[in-house]
């Protein structure tokens, strides 16, 4: 098998007395959709936050393309090409879709006005329209604050934002948790399109059927540790649940 693109090794994270991660490992291989599953409180969100720079690990290492990296801040993660869609959507509700897509990475005008920080809204709107269209997302009004959009549209904006900037790996933390059936299908479709462009996607979810449907590979977290890895083809809901709940400890089939 190919080298993992991203590896987490022995990640430990405490919140006061709570040990959210107790030496967790995690791998992402090139061009795959890998699902990270686990019961509530297993540490999935914490692991994602550490790999995307929002939180710092107490121990452990992160290896990107064979090199040790320090993901010391969200900015550093972005610089490394790691993008994240957080469970609690990290959008600014009063800004429109384009402003959110480019939030923190605005295009400024050419010339002296640009040096003064004048924004090129036209370029950003055009880029946003293209980015949304590429993912099959339709925003009726790109000038409307995202607060006025439906949950699915908002999720799409957040996903489009990460897709636009990621070149190494994208983390999606429970991207369909708040969505209806149709919108969920659409977001899953978007996830496949991202993978098909060559950017691996980490999907955090505890919806087993959904995971089996889109993921190529599945890693299971339990009580802050990786307890199993599956190839999605051979896996069943029963085996995933068993791994999540501890019924399968130590014998997850390596992919």
């Amino acid at each position, binding site marked *: 098998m190919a080298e993992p693109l991203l590896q987490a090794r022995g990640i430990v994270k405490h919140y006061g007395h709570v040990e959210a991660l107790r030496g967790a490992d995690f791998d992402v291989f090139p061009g795959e959709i890998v699902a990270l599953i686990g019961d509530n409180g297993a540490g999935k969100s914490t692991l994602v936050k550490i790999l995307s720079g929002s939180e710092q690990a107490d121990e452990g290492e992160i290896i990107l393309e064979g090199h040790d990296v320090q993901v010391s801040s969200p900015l550093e993660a972005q610089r490394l090409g790691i993008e994240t869609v957080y469970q609690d*959507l*990290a959008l600014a509700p009063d*800004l429109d879709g384009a*402003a959110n897509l480019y939030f*923190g990475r605005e295009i400024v005008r050419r010339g002296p006005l640009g040096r003064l920080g004048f*924004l090129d809204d036209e370029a950003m709107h055009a880029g946003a329209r293209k980015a949304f269209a590429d993912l099959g997302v339709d925003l009726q009004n790109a000038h409307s604050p995202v607060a006025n959009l439906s949950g699915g549209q908002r999720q799409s904006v957040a996903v489009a934002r990460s897709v636009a900037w990621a*070149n190494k790996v994208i983390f999606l933390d429970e991207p369909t948790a708040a969505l209806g059936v149709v919108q969920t299908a659409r977001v899953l479709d978007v996830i496949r399109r991202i993978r098909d462009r060559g950017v691996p996607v980490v999907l955090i979810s505890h919806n087993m059927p959904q995971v089996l449907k889109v993921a190529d590979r599945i890693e299971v977290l339990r009580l802050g540790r990786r307890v199993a890895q599956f190839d999605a083809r051979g896996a069943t809901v029963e085996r995933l649940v068993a791994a999540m709940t501890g019924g399968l400890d130590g014998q997850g089939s390596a992919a």
Partner: protein
Amino acid sequence: MTEDKVPPNPADDTNGSQAPAEPSEGALWRRLMRTNTAWIFLVLILLVAFFSVLKPNNFPTEFNTRAIATNAAVLLIIAVGETFVIITGGIDLSVGYVLLFSGVTAAQTMNAFGNPTDRGWDLILLGLLVALVSGLAWGTVNGVLVAKAKVPPLIVTLGTLGMAWGMAQILSNGQDIRYIPSLLGSVVGAGKFYAVPWLVIIAALVAAVGAIVLRMTRFGRYTFGVGSNEEAARRAGINVDRHLIKVYALSGLLAGFGGFLALAYFTTTTISGHANDNLNAIAAVVIGGTSLTGGIGTVVGTTIGVFIPAILASGFIIIGLQSFWQNVAVGAVLIAAVFIDQLRRRSRER
């Protein structure tokens, strides 16, 4: 900034047809409606019409218009800074007394070399510099305490309000400083460019620059973004603390500038005359449609919000009502503005 990947170039937009082109006219109007600005502008027009019909010979005159605009000028300058602060979701209660403090330090500096009455622009510029630095210093203190010490803005600026007030009185022994270069009073304070008072021109320029910065620059975009979702701004890699410090510093700087202009206008420090400046500035911002919960607001709205109390004050005096009625009316308009904002927010949370 290093960006090794940039979203799709608009130039190769071949299949963007799914995104309907939005009508660009009407977009501005909708944006105005969204920010209350259109409504509040309507109120302004109605007020002007009302007083003009009632007192056609006294209210809509060149003299009265000039008086209203001049009285509003200093308030507009501090309200512009307050607009930025409130859009970040904060508040700056200290502006009125930072204004006073800066006026006092500027006046004292200009008096440090003897009676300044006949002195020229060099001393005036020195006074201006001291006022600006004084305001900037208080604003930076506010910003650092809000952003770094994480003390709520209401408390920080309530604290610096008291400190600036106290310091202004300590420095001046509670006595107004009545001597300033007469050039400052006659040109900046009372002078006109053609028919327009310099104070009004200066305030209009500050408001225009403020509006442009807020709407068209990265600084403005971050101001909205931080106020809209601070956590999102952090995760987007924006240095939120630094931005907040800058915004409070800007508010302080404009209060310092306002203090210098007030000095020019009244030709004295008017130590007891700034008790209402804070609330008037905040009221103007909120009446103008800027949301106290952050993320929404315009400088245009704030400008209208400054003029509503100013027109009420003038109108009430001209129709012979006690000027105290102005306070009653402004209070009512303020509550109505916040109420409408709440309704708007609620209707949005579907």
